[in-house]
């Protein structure tokens, strides 16, 4: 390959879109490394502490699009204290100082301040796309800066962030000259919105294809917006409540008929079920439907709606649909690829919930299913075995039994065999979450059969260190392992220390690992950051090596211990 000029190599590399392919290519030889790094525009960093912004900028001067992830996954479930870290500020500062022409920034589980957003908005003339998922630390003032200063903004996508809502005026900060919006999602905002500004913004955004509204946007405004944006592909309604006999509602019905391009539908944050028929005409075109925040739609209404959605590929729904409802999904949505069933009453007794029967029905009717997140009251081995047989194409299989150590209620046995069947049958499985009563056996199965597994989430499972060992020894492609409340200790942790450099991270909380074990690991592996999170003062007073560690998070890194760790995080 030496006799190809660099431009040819670069042209060939242009066809490589996946990060992994480009990463692999850069390892071939120094020539390829050099060509690749100058031509790389999109970089994905799965752990913001694995590398520094300076190193990133040095290596990829042509960077245009950056994705960063911060806190560990279990931070989603309140297991990581506030102030743990994951700040985007140093990244934006470094990029702003450099000559990088950043155009896209996607962040997940990071702390973003208004100052960061302000700096971002002023530093990159061509900035186009901001996507924030599960982030926190900013207010609508930061959004106002983005709106006001990013002259060519195309996408502002806010998903499930905790945003302090100071006022709805941020929408008015989009200048009249801003006509480039293609995607706007502010569904997670809790406060009021200037409706007139919103309507004007939509009116001057001819390329708008994705719009997700928040709860403060009433049905009247929705109707007016849809009149202006009949080419929308992705719609998230806000409040969907009105008197079905009213003129407004009738206008909406007519307007919706024009919206033939809508393929994704979500929202219904507040809903009057009697208004749902207005959307039936577009249901046939839908490929994606997210009703997981529509607590106001009861089972029977859901079922009526679903019957219209024959082309669905993705469905996110609440468990009030019930097993019967899932049977309807199974018979109607034969193209279904991804299903998520969330609990509508996570802390209650759960009479409305779904069981193994619903899942089995789905597996029969939806053979293309490859991604599942299923919160249920109970599960049986027989059902899992059936599902494994019917759906061998699972890539993601996440099962959450609301009572985390519940056995098979029919046989009273652990669910080892059921999950074992899943990993044996689904040879492409990349992500797995376990629950229910589980022994070391399930880990033996996982280690033996889950050859493509990259991410495993475990809670309240296993009997001994052997469980964890089976997984560490068997799953060659494992990248992320997160464990809580399992009896895995130092022996398992230290058995194969080199393994952790092949992985992104390991989380262990409420296990049997001790301070000594963590210190030992840290000593032997300098390229790992082994962090202990202490929330109680006792650790300081009597930090004995024999003491069990409440929360440990370790990850590979090229830049050593981080300097922004708070007091309660110890880097060993």
């Amino acid at each position: 390959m030496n006799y190809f000029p660099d431009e040819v190599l670069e042209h060939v590399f242009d066809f490589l879109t996946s990060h992994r392919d480009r990463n692999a290519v850069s390892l071939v030889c120094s020539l390829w490394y050099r060509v690749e790094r100058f031509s790389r525009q999109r970089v994905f960093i799965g752990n913001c502490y694995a590398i520094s912004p300076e190193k990133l900028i040095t290596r990829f001067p042509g960077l245009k699009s950056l994705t960063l992830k911060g806190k560990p996954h279990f931070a989603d479930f309140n297991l990581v204290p506030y102030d743990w870290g994951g700040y985007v500020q140093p990244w934006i500062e470094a990029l702003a100082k450099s000559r990088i022409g950043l155009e896209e920034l996607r962040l997940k589980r990071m702390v973003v301040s208004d100052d960061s957003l302000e700096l971002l908005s002023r530093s990159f003339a061509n900035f186009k796309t901001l996507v924030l998922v599960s982030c926190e630390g900013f207010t609508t003032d930061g959004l106002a800066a983005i709106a006001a200063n990013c002259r060519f903004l195309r996408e502002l996508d806010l998903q499930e962030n905790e945003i302090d809502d100071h006022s709805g005026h941020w929408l008015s900060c989009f200048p009249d000259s801003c006509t480039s919006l293609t995607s706007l999602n502010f569904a997670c905002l809790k406060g009021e919105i200037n409706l007139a500004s919103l309507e004007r913004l939509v009116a001057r955004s001819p390329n708008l294809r994705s719009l997700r509204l928040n709860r403060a946007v009433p049905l009247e405004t929705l109707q007016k917006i849809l009149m202006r944006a009949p080419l929308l592909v992705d719609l998230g309604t806000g409040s969907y409540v009105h008197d079905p006999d009213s003129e407004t509602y009738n206008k909406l019905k007519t307007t919706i008929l024009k919206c033939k391009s809508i393929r994704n539908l979500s929202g219904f944050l507040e809903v009057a079920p009697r208004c749902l028929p207005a959307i039936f005409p577009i249901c046939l075109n839908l490929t994606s439907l997210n009703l997981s925040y529509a607590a106001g739609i009861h089972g029977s209404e859901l079922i009526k709606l679903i019957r219209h959605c024959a082309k669905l590929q993705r469905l996110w729904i609440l468990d009030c649909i019930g097993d019967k409802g899932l049977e309807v999904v199974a018979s109607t949505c034969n193209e279904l690829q991804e299903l998520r069933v969330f609990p509508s009453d996570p802390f209650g007794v759960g009479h409305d919930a779904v069981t193994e029967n619903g899942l089995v029905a789905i597996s029969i009717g939806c053979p293309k299913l490859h991604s599942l997140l299923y919160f249920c009251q109970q599960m049986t081995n027989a059902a899992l075995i059936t599902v494994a047989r019917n759906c061998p194409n699972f890539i993601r299989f996440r099962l959450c039994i609301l009572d985390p150590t519940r056995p098979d209620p029919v046989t009273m046995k652990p669910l080892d065999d059921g999950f074992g069947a899943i990993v044996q049958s689904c040879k492409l499985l990349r992500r797995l979450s376990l629950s229910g009563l589980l022994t070391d056996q399930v880990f033996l199965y996982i280690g033996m059969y889950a050859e493509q597994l990259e991410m495993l989430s475990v809670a309240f499972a296993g009997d001994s260190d052997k469980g964890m060992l089976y997984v560490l020894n068997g799953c060659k492609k494992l990248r992320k392992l997160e464990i809580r409340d399992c009896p895995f200790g130092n022996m398992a942790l230290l058995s194969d220390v080199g393994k952790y450099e092949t992985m992104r991270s390991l989380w262990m909380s409420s296990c049997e690992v001790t301070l000594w074990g963590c210190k030992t690991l840290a000593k032997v592996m300098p390229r790992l950051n082994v962090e202990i999170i202490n929330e109680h003062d006792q650790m300081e007073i009597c930090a004995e090596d024999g003491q069990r560690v409440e929360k440990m998070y370790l990850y590979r890194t090229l830049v050593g211990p981080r300097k922004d760790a708070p007091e309660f995080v110890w880097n060993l």
Partner: protein
Amino acid sequence: MEKSVNYGGHHDDLNLEATELRLGLPGIIRSDIIGYEKQSSSASTVVVVRNNKRASPEGIMTQESSSKSHSYVSDARNGDPDSHHQPPAKAQVVGWPPIRSFRRNSFQQKKTDQGDGAGMYVKVSMDGAPYLRKVDLKVYKSYPELLTALENMFKFTIGEYSEREGYNRSEYAPTYEDKDGDWMLVGDVPWDMFIFSCKRLRIMKGSEARGLGCL
């Protein structure tokens, strides 16, 4: 006597037969490998529940070391072979079920809106009044109490309820929006059913009110 349960964890070598999976029910698999007995749900069962209590370094289980964030699952391994799985107490485990905090918070919010827990506030509008009020339905035990309170709040009188004619003898009719979004006359259903299905109140006035009573 129940057969002891063999989970393969007792074996040091890789017992391939133990891990051979055929996609069939456990009962079909050779019983010498996995020593389960099919048990009816009413029979007592041995369920090996993982010991979730923290052991001290010496390996002795101590009561005091179980921390708040641990699960409530009882330890069946020690001493009580007949124990069966207990449903958990309502005290929740931190971070379980694993739902993103944003979603979790929006559920709490919805529960508050629907009036579970402390207070059950609903909006009350009265035709012609410049602003709405809110009342806590949980404070009242019956319709007369609620109606008296509304009469005092908005300074009007409502007269008596009759099943046949509603509130026909008065200028006003108290109505409410139920969970289906329909507007119903206050007083038709039992009080307890009412407070759980009432989402908001509206005091209708004049001809509209009388029209309802005529149905």
